[in-house]
């Protein structure tokens, strides 16, 4: 077979992780271009998991933080337990457990009021793993937002009371913006951390159908085939550093907007402090 040019490689494998393009993965004579293209193609899944889990998780996290700060134990206790379970156990185990639970769903589908709901798609990574990541990041973010909510300055709330702002509008106009502002640097780290955690998906029960996997899946494929870890893994590292920098930039813009009313020397700075494994 003619060796491919790099452009041809990109055309053949650029969207391989979505199942578009060449079906067979390269098997021998691996080029650097193939490494970059295929691993980059896998990065689509990391971005997919990260962005969607972060987006949906944000709303659940707000609700959970409020529930944890609530007076009534009927709201507080479930929120505390949810946060404890997801923060206290390894994400790896959560993935395995969720996969095994989803496999137990009846194969034929569930019958709800005469309509059969398919269940097979829930065991696919795009749905099942996304769901776990969504719950997981919601729990971590909820703890951040809860802490931020607790450290809203007393004076802000008193000022709102003095103006007669109460209830929902006090929350929406005073508490919530301040909570976000205070929690934002920590939330940025959580977002970075979540993107890193997406690399676990295809190593934890969820199978990669037709070799459609994420960046680390393809890097692992190359390392297994070439017995040379010194090329594919640094490429994954390179991609993730780029992704992390992009994330810091986007979250920094939001941070600027959240802090726009403050004098410049009082604005919180985001410091890169990603954690390890969850």
């Amino acid at each position, binding site marked *: 077979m003619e060796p491919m040019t790099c452009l041809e490689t990109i055309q053949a494998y650029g969207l391989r992780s979505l199942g578009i393009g060449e079906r067979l993965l390269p098997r021998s004579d691996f080029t650097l271009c193939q490494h970059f293209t295929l691993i980059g193609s896998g990065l689509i899944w990391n971005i997919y998991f990260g962005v969607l889990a972060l987006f949906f998780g944000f709303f659940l996290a707000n609700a959970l933080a409020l529930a944890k700060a609530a007076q009534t134990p009927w709201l507080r206790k479930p929120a505390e337990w949810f946060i404890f379970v997801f923060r206290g156990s390894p994400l790896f185990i959560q993935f*395995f457990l969720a996969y095994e*639970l989803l496999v137990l769903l009846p194969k034929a589908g569930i019958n709800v009021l005469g309509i059969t709901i398919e269940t097979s798609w829930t065991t696919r990574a795009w749905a099942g793993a996304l769901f776990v990541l969504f719950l997981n990041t919601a729990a971590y973010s909820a703890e951040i937002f809860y802490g931020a909510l607790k450290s809203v300055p007393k004076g802000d709330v008193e000022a709102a009371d003095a103006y007669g702002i109460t209830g929902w509008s006090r929350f929406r106009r005073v508490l919530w913006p301040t909570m976000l502002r205070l929690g934002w640097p920590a939330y940025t780290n959580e977002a970075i951390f979540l993107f890193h955690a997406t690399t676990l998906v295809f190593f934890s029960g969820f199978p990669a159908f037709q070799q459609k996997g994420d960046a680390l899946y393809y890097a692992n494929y190359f390392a297994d085939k070439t017995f040379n870890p010194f090329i594919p893994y640094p490429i994954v590292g390179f991609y993730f550093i780029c992704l992390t920098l992009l994330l810091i930039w986007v979250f920094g813009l939001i941070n600027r907007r959240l802090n726009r009313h403050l004098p410049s020397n009082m604005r919180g700075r985001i410091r890169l402090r990603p954690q390890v494994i969850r």
Partner: protein
Amino acid sequence: MFEFCADPSQLSGLTWLSCYLTTGTHFNFYWSFLTVLMLLAVTAPVALAFGFGGAMAARSPLLPVSWIGKGYIAAVRGVPDIVYFLFFVIALDQGIEWTKHLFVCEDLSQPVWNGTEFRVCPEAKVPLAASSAIWHSAYAFATAVFTFALVFGAFAANVLYGAMQAVPRAQLETAEAYGMTPRQVFRRVLVPQMWVFALPGLSNLWLILIKATPLLFLLGIQDIVYWARELGSAKTSGNNPYPHGDWRVFYFLALLVFYLAFTRVSEVFLARLTRRLSHGQATLGGEQLRKAGA
């Protein structure tokens, strides 16, 4: 294990369960919990030592040494750690075998990395193909510990570096004014005082380390995840004395409970330790303790 377990097909209910849970393979599963605990017990001090070295290097007045320390801290952050786990295990193995290859092999004319192969002569294999299975698993465990220590050492270095910077400057200046050498200042003033600043970060790291242990499975160790998958999968073949369906979900549930309990116990213990170390310190926590005592 029990005498009544001789014929499992006659058993039912709790007696069946008690026999099922005491089979030889289940004991392997229970032992693997010890593997995890052992990994934690070995990794934590080694990672702390790596962290200490890294932090000391980063603080060094010699520029190249300081670059090495800071580079070590920076390199491990920003990239998903699972990448490091997968990378180091192969890289370490190949590094060791390649070094040994240079010394013990007679024929060095062939390249070691050749296309899709990594080839050293049989004498350079670590451990040797002929050595017993125990050595193979011990070697795998040792590389796993080293990898964990290397990755977590960078995080510990970051925490300790911050803690060393957080010790009030006046303390060090006072020590210098008393005529202590830099080495004495470091040993007698800086290190004893930095722990209270390092503890929140280190406790966090400990909790993260606990939650990282299932990744041993990815390094090819027969850990609790491995056994949970083995034991839980459906056993329906004719010669299995304890046939059952797919029970993996229960095994993983047990692992989840194990980790939650472990995390909780650690949290309680670390909270006590924090209280202990805050005693007599010029920090908010120490001040609160003083007032409560007065």
